């Protein structure tokens, strides 16, 4: 029997692009597991919008107790003996006002646990962007999963690299979209179940995500399969231009020492034919010796710029159309031009020395090692014995 994974979706957590992507993911994973999408009744208005995902709805309910002495004592017990530096107890500081004294609110999710459920995925709420209902469901779902010994993985929609990290502490694992979130959470969470999505997936989980990002993700899945690109191989996008054949050959020579870790995506205009040779032929012919030192390569139409999302970085000899798009899409660009002074503007960097080019490429390789595709993360949950995140540790 195939294992099942519950993906919990609420009102503010879905865009048409995310929905299309989740459908793609559902289909992609279907041979290995069933991805079940669940929506709380508080978000029932999205059921129609995401009907392609075959979502099911579940009930939520809330019960409250006011000025309950038992509630007050129970809270006091939880906080008992925990103090700030210099000894003031948390209970003294927070119990009566911020923690509501004897008032208690309990939200339940009435989910009937499907057989062979191996995990729950949900979005991490953030202090500057989530609604109260959404958060109550989040907490209730975590409690439900813990009671049912189901590991929970939270994913980043809004930035998690903030001073507030309590919500991110609650799931057993965290999927991040941003490198800075990944690096930051590594320093503040006491487990190692933190993953960074590749750009083509990370860009999907955005409230401003567009078709561009979705096409990028689909293209990445296609080329990764088509070109048999292993998960850890770094992909670089090379916006080739026939006006700079010498320069690109130089770049390939510089990168050759780490070529076995690289897949090169050569992007160019399909109509750029010089004499009897297409660009693809020029590349294959002129760089024949250099390409042997690279693990794999592929060719791409520059009119499909979303395919660039698959790349860890773009490596070019000059700023160009593709570097502009890369800049807008937060894909790091490395421009190697010995004749211009070096420059670093965040996602756009120019180097004029070969050693700096190689260093920048190595940084891209290192960055890639942090990243995991969503499918690979999900598959960690299907390992037998995964309970409450204990088996997630890599």
């Amino acid at each position, binding site marked *: 029997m195939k294992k099942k994974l519950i993906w919990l979706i609420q009102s503010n957590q879905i865009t048409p692009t995310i929905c299309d992507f989740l459908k793609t993911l559902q289909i992609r994973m279907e041979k290995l597991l069933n991805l079940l999408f669940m929506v709380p009744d508080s978000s029932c208005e999205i059921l129609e919008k995401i009907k392609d995902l075959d979502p099911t709805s579940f009930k939520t309910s809330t019960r409250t107790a006011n000025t309950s002495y038992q509630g007050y004592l129970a809270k006091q017990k939880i906080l008992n003996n925990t103090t700030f530096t210099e000894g003031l107890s948390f209970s003294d*500081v927070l119990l*009566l006002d911020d923690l509501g004294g004897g008032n208690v609110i309990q939200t339940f999710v009435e989910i009937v646990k499907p057989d062979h459920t191996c995990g729950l995925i949900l979005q991490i709420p953030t202090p500057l962007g989530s609604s109260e209902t959404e958060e109550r469901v989040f907490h209730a779902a975590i409690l439900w999963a813990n009671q049912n010994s189901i590991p929970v993985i939270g994913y980043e929609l809004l930035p998690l690299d903030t001073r507030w990290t309590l919500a991110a502490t609650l799931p057993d694992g965290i999927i991040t979209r941003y490198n800075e979130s990944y690096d930051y959470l590594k320093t503040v969470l006491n487990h190692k179940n933190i993953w960074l999505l590749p750009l083509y997936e990370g860009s999907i989980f955005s409230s401003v995500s567009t078709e561009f990002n979705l096409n990028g993700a689909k293209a990445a899945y296609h080329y990764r399969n088509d070109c048999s690109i292993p998960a850890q191989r770094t992909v670089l996008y090379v916006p080739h231009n026939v006006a700079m054949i010498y320069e690109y050959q130089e770049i390939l020579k510089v990168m050759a020492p780490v070529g076995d870790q690289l897949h090169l995506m050569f992007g160019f205009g399909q109509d750029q034919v010089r004499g009897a040779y297409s660009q693809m032929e020029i590349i294959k012919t002129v760089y024949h010796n250099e390409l042997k030192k690279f693990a794999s390569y592929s060719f791409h139409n520059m009119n499909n710029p979303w395919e660039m999302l698959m790349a860890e970085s773009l490596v070019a000899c000059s700023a160009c159309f593709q570097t502009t798009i890369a800049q807008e899409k937060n894909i790091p660009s490395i421009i190697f031009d010995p004749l211009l002074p070096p420059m670093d503007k965040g996602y756009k960097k120019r180097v004029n020395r070969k050693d700096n080019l190689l260093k920048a490429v190595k940084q891209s390789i290192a960055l890639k090692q942090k990243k995991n595709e969503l499918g690979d993360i999900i598959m960690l949950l299907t390992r037998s014995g995964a309970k409450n995140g204990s088996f997630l540790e890599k």
Partner: protein
Amino acid sequence: MDHFWKNKKIIAYIALAHHTRFIIPVMERLASQGARIRYIVGQAERSQEITALELGLEYSHIYDFITDADYDEIQKNYHLLKQTFAHSLKRHFLLGVLPVTVIDKTLYATSMEYIGLRNLLKKEKPDLCFALHELNRWGKMFAFWAKKENIPFITLQEGLTYDIDFGYSGHAQYSTLNLVWGERVKRKMVGFEAPESKILPVGNAHLAKEMAVQKKKRVRETKRKTYGISNHFVSLLVLSATLPNPDLFAPIFKTVSENTGQTLFVKFHPACKKPQIDKWTKLIPDHFKKNTYFIHAEENTYDLISMADVCVLGQLSTTGLEAIAFGKPLVKLNFAYSSKAPYSFVDQGVAVKMSALEFAKALTDKTDFSKLIDKEKTEQYLTNELIDTAKAIENICCVFKKTIQANTDTDKSAGKSEQAPDKKWSIIIQVPDDHNVFLAQLEAVAFNSENQGDYEIILLEPEKKTTEITRILDSLEGDVKRIVVPENNNSIVLMNQAGNMARGEHLIFLEKKLAPLKGWLDCLDHAFLKHGDGKIFGASISDQKGKIACAGMVVDHNHTPVSAYRYLQMGFPSALKERSFQMVDYFVAMKKKLFCKTGGFTPQAGKYLFLDICLKTIQYKDDADAIVYLPDLKMIFLDHLYQRENPDDAIYFYGKWNGCLWESEKKLHEVDGISPEDIAQAKLTAAMQSIGA
């Protein structure tokens, strides 16, 4: 003019606008006498900055006192909090009253404020701190750090405290003192285990001013004219945050709408949300709304009360007290009344209970509602609730002054020894009122002190005493000295005089009605040999029922002194350990030399005199173990000890020592391996023995 306040620095924490009506009048009074007032606000989504800005107060934010150097400590505290909360939130719902991210923001802000408040007090070194209460995080942390710095921290009362609330127990936990409006509130708080000794009724600080403003500005006349209702009969219906079904008020709306001489103001609680109000008012038919005004924040509640001829409570509300104080008749609608309510205007005879229909009929009949209210009960009620309105601010300022004076007191009152010792012991006894008790006390001393070294007895006798007491006193022979304590004189001054004139090398002071048991002086003799001259010794003291009255003093969770293992049986094993305590009560024995060097008893310490001399000795000797409890030195109270409550005693004691009084009762239990269940069981056993079960 009193120059005391010149350049005294006061820091007041202000949060919400309605808090300031209690705080500002006091601060303004002190500022007018030369004090420098500094207001601070904290981090909250209901902006506390706005409170200050709207009142035109200069303020600092707690965060202003945080520097880059504090970052690590803030992170450390946040991490500790986060760990605790994450652990709990993963397992149960109890800490989930607020959404997770709101808790998170609170935790981070708390971590910052904790450090900010510490830095604020270290930097500013105020003479006194002031806040409405210490029930929220800002008040609690502010009070904690002030206590750490031994800066007096005084809190007030907010609202009527008529409901059941566990918060009352924390009302004066870290505060030096908590000033409340009246006796009733004090009793209420004490009923919830708040510290009796630290809660002082002083009166209400804002009502008198409000009433004066209303009168001066002729608000009733002016406002009624503005509304065009000068000759109308005006009813004020007060509602709370959760609105009841409007149909319940239908007879009132109907009557008011049908009578041109009637006007009704419906006042919603500030916490009520506008959509909630809109929804509620839409449910009332339009033709019923004639002559009725629905007020949320458009009018000041006091202005409305002034305009009104009768106030009607449609739900639980604190506005009732204010209406009564303004002299308005109060009606409580029957559906808002509950006989089980912990606080009821109706049950106290200061409000009339009526159904909406009855009230509507009374309006039609032009009833004089004031005739329905019992004036005597109303006066009694106001006295009990408010003690004082006219002089409340003076009362508060007076407490502030005495507290600061105590806090900075360095007076050594006892002075030099007048008499070189030629006796081993001087036993100083305060003569009780009851001659039987006195006789038994003297017999116990005489009988149980034989062959344990020569001693003298110094008796402090009241100027006015019974014939029996006088007869006993006159019959005494031997080494007995008598000192008369004139009426209205401070007996502590005379106790110091007794100490100075004593001929004994060792001084022994006994509380009234306290009698020693056999071998007590031998026990003391051994103790002096074992521990040396620099100690104060305390005794194992039983009450008249054989329960522990004092087995060394610890500090409870309210940071007030209590006896270790109080009310347990005298044989309770943990009470039989010789060890040092911070304080002992009712009995002290010490070298006369030490008594004089420490300055003797402090006259202002009142009933805390024994505790005070212990703390002074620890400070003087710089020895945390200077006070030694001797379980083999046994004493017994021959009768119940009644100690007169004098607020000045508490003001002095807590004003002086609040910074030294930190919870130690729980620690003692931990050291002794006693669980709360063990204590509960021991209390039960002791209680059962008392009733002979």
